[in-house]
């Protein structure tokens, strides 16, 4: 019996790269490392133009508040530090490094010969913080902060390998190629939290990965590999917790509030590497796919590599794409520039043509068919939220729990009337959040306390 949740959509998986082994990208001539690749405060550069850096060297740190340091992903010379606008509209500073081709690794990075029993929670958290690891499923929440905030609260530890978005196979390949390090990473985290039993949760379209992990575990019963039904958005933290424990996590709460802590499998793998090998997060697996890519691949690419290099490595385009999407097709971000760098949260680069899944171009109209209601994993009524948002009645949106929307896109995916549901609900959420922030600013004390609690 596979674990699952209510709502969601079954869709064409397009996992065309599932059988393609991870290939290492030839070292790029330049890398562009943004100083903000995570949720929290941006980093400040610790190097100057003209400095020589080693691969793995810290080049930016967060001085105060939540955040992760960033590292040089190649060895070479800092040629530029510039401010650019990201596709999400934020300004971000980035460090450009000209590769000297020597691949000179920082001296501290080597296997330290320790075993899981030798590591204390503090050591682990510090190693993870220094390695700059943030959630690699796309959310990019600093991992050290997740670990320390869940210490003492977590009773269940779950490795999220659902990978429910179409196209993406980065976690799938990692489980097939590095099962031991994922499992050891999980065991390390189990020790840190003092949890006896760990779970690796996988959708049932990746049974080969399930077999591989079970084979690697052998007689070891401390880790359970759990199979979930393939359905989008199973990889959403709330839906994973519900599928495995039956607990519904309220909007605004963290998994730790219900005793759960969840890590993406590539995050877990990098925790292992950070703690035992001293290796910071300077490369990641990126699925390069889509119907415009000549030869879709899974690529291990240094952070900061231009996505155009990845596409070239896949043989270029078969036709000029209409869209370049970073991340999955359901929640990823369309890009205007083909030279944006791979960051810690980039699990996929998709090049999609105009003909891909084109909808009839008749003007959109809600038919009131209720399909959006039946697929919403948060059990909202997207049609009414969108309708009120369109009428600028944001108070009603708030009353009908617009803020619970996780923007998974299931409603807009299924809508036969082609209504831009997510866009409208996002608009409402933005207005509601702005209003709440303004209220919080006006009424200082009690509201501030609330914010801190969060």
């Amino acid at each position: 019996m596979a674990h699952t949740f209510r709502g969601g959509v079954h869709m064409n998986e397009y996992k065309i790269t599932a059988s393609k082994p991870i290939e290492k990208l030839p070292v790029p001539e330049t890398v562009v490392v943004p100083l903000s690749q995570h949720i929290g405060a941006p980093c400040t550069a610790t190097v100057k133009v003209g400095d020589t850096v080693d691969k793995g060297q810290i080049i930016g740190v967060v001085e105060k508040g939540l955040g992760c340091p960033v590292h040089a992903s190649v060895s070479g010379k800092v040629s530029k530090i510039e401010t650019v606008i990201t596709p999400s509209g934020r300004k971000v500073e980035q460090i450009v490094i000209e590769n000297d081709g020597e691949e000179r690794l920082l001296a501290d990075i080597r296997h330290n010969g320790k075993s899981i029993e030798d590591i204390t929670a503090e050591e682990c958290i510090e190693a993870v913080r220094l390695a700059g690891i943030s959630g690699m499923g796309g959310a990019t929440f600093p991992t050290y902060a997740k670990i320390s905030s869940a210490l003492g609260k977590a009773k269940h530890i779950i490795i999220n390998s659902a990978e429910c978005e179409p196209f993406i196979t980065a976690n799938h390949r990692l489980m097939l190629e590095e099962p031991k390090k994922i499992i050891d990473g999980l065991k390390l985290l189990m020790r840190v939290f003092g949890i006896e039993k760990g779970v690796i949760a996988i959708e049932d379209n990746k049974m080969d990965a399930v077999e591989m992990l079970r084979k690697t575990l052998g007689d070891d019963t401390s880790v359970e590999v759990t199979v979930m039904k393939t359905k989008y958005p199973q990889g959403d933290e709330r839906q994973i917790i519900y599928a495995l424990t039956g607990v519904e996590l309220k909007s605004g709460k963290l998994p730790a509030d219900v005793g759960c802590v969840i890590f993406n499998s590539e995050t877990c793998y990098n925790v292992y590497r950070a703690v035992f090998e001293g290796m910071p997060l300077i490369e990641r697996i990126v699925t390069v796919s889509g119907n415009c890519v000549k030869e879709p691949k899974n690529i291990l690419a240094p952070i900061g590599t231009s996505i155009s290099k990845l596409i070239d490595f896949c043989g270029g385009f078969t036709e000029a794409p209409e869209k370049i999407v970073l991340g999955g097709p359901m929640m990823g971000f369309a890009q205007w520039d083909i030279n944006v760098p791979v960051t810690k949260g980039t699990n996929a680069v998709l090049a999609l043509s105009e003909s891909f899944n084109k909808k009839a171009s008749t003007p959109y109209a809600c038919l009131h068919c209720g399909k959006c209601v039946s697929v919403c994993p948060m059990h909202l009524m997207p049609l009414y939220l969108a309708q009120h948002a369109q009428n600028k009645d944001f108070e009603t949106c708030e009353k009908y729990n617009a803020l619970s929307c996780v923007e998974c896109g299931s409603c807009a995916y299924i809508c036969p009337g082609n209504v831009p549901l997510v866009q409208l609900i996002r608009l409402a959420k933005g207005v509601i959040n702005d209003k709440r922030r303004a209220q919080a600013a006006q009424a200082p004390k009690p509201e501030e306390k609330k914010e801190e609690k969060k």
Partner: protein
Amino acid sequence: MDSNKTLTLSPSPHVKHKNNTQAVMRDVLIALTPAFIWSIVIYGWMAAVLTVLSVALCVFYEFAYQKLTKKPITVSDCSAAITGMLIAFNLPVTTAPWVLIFGCFFAIVIVKQLFGGIGKNIVNPAIAARIFMFVSWPGQLSHFPKGYYNPFVSADAVSSATPLTALKGGAVPETSVLESFFGQIGGSLGEISALLLLAGGAYLIIRRVITWHIPVAFIATVAVFAFFFPQAGVSGLTSMGYHVFSGGLILGAIFMATDYTTSPVTPVGRLIFGVGCGLLTVMIRYLGAYPEGASFAIMIMNLLVWYIDRITMPRVFGQRKEKKAKEGGEAK
């Protein structure tokens, strides 16, 4: 590789289900086809004339309205064609074609377009048109021939009372339940074969165009009442058979009560809607002046859809557990 081509920026999701309004409507047309063919077999070519005329008029009115009001033309979504088909299905074959000129105008222009077009109308256009024609020209719409009808040779039209009219009058109907199931009775064009309508309904449910809730709740409610309160001294089962298989019940329950725009969006809401339609149908058939009540019942329930949606709003993910946690300490 042409990397200079302008890239499109748009919010997620970047994939969409292939299904669109037109495909949904096309499925409904497919589901109606068997009953359409059967109506030609039973009543002859006049059935085809009425249906084609009705579809053509509805599409024309929609096109003309949108052209005149300078709105985008949406006739290609097929929804007007369905309305046309359903209007014809609700008429006896002897209806004079000129009635359709008014009926289709009422459905498309008054009930649908004046309220904002597809997705915005409050009552089902085909139902409203049926009622409009029925009260305006009762003589045209309550004469039900049995079998082949040719307007130029009017002698061979054998008129008969429908089973429901007979029951209401306290008489045992001439036709058997089985005959009404297969469609060898007098009635409106599309309502006569329960079997073919059910087949169409099964197709729509399999294709996930509609869910089972409304038709099952609607039909079951009528069946239960007909079983426990038989008329004219027939047995409970026979009464149930007549009430379910003749009259507009099946056509209404499967094709008209399930109209997206004028039915609720949640499963619970759909059940409430179906039961409500069933109760009103029974009340009208038993207590009202008309032997046939499905259309009126659906139209009345149409008006309540907005309220049903409000009261059946699903519990948002995570909300109940929170209450529990507050009351009884931390949830496990």
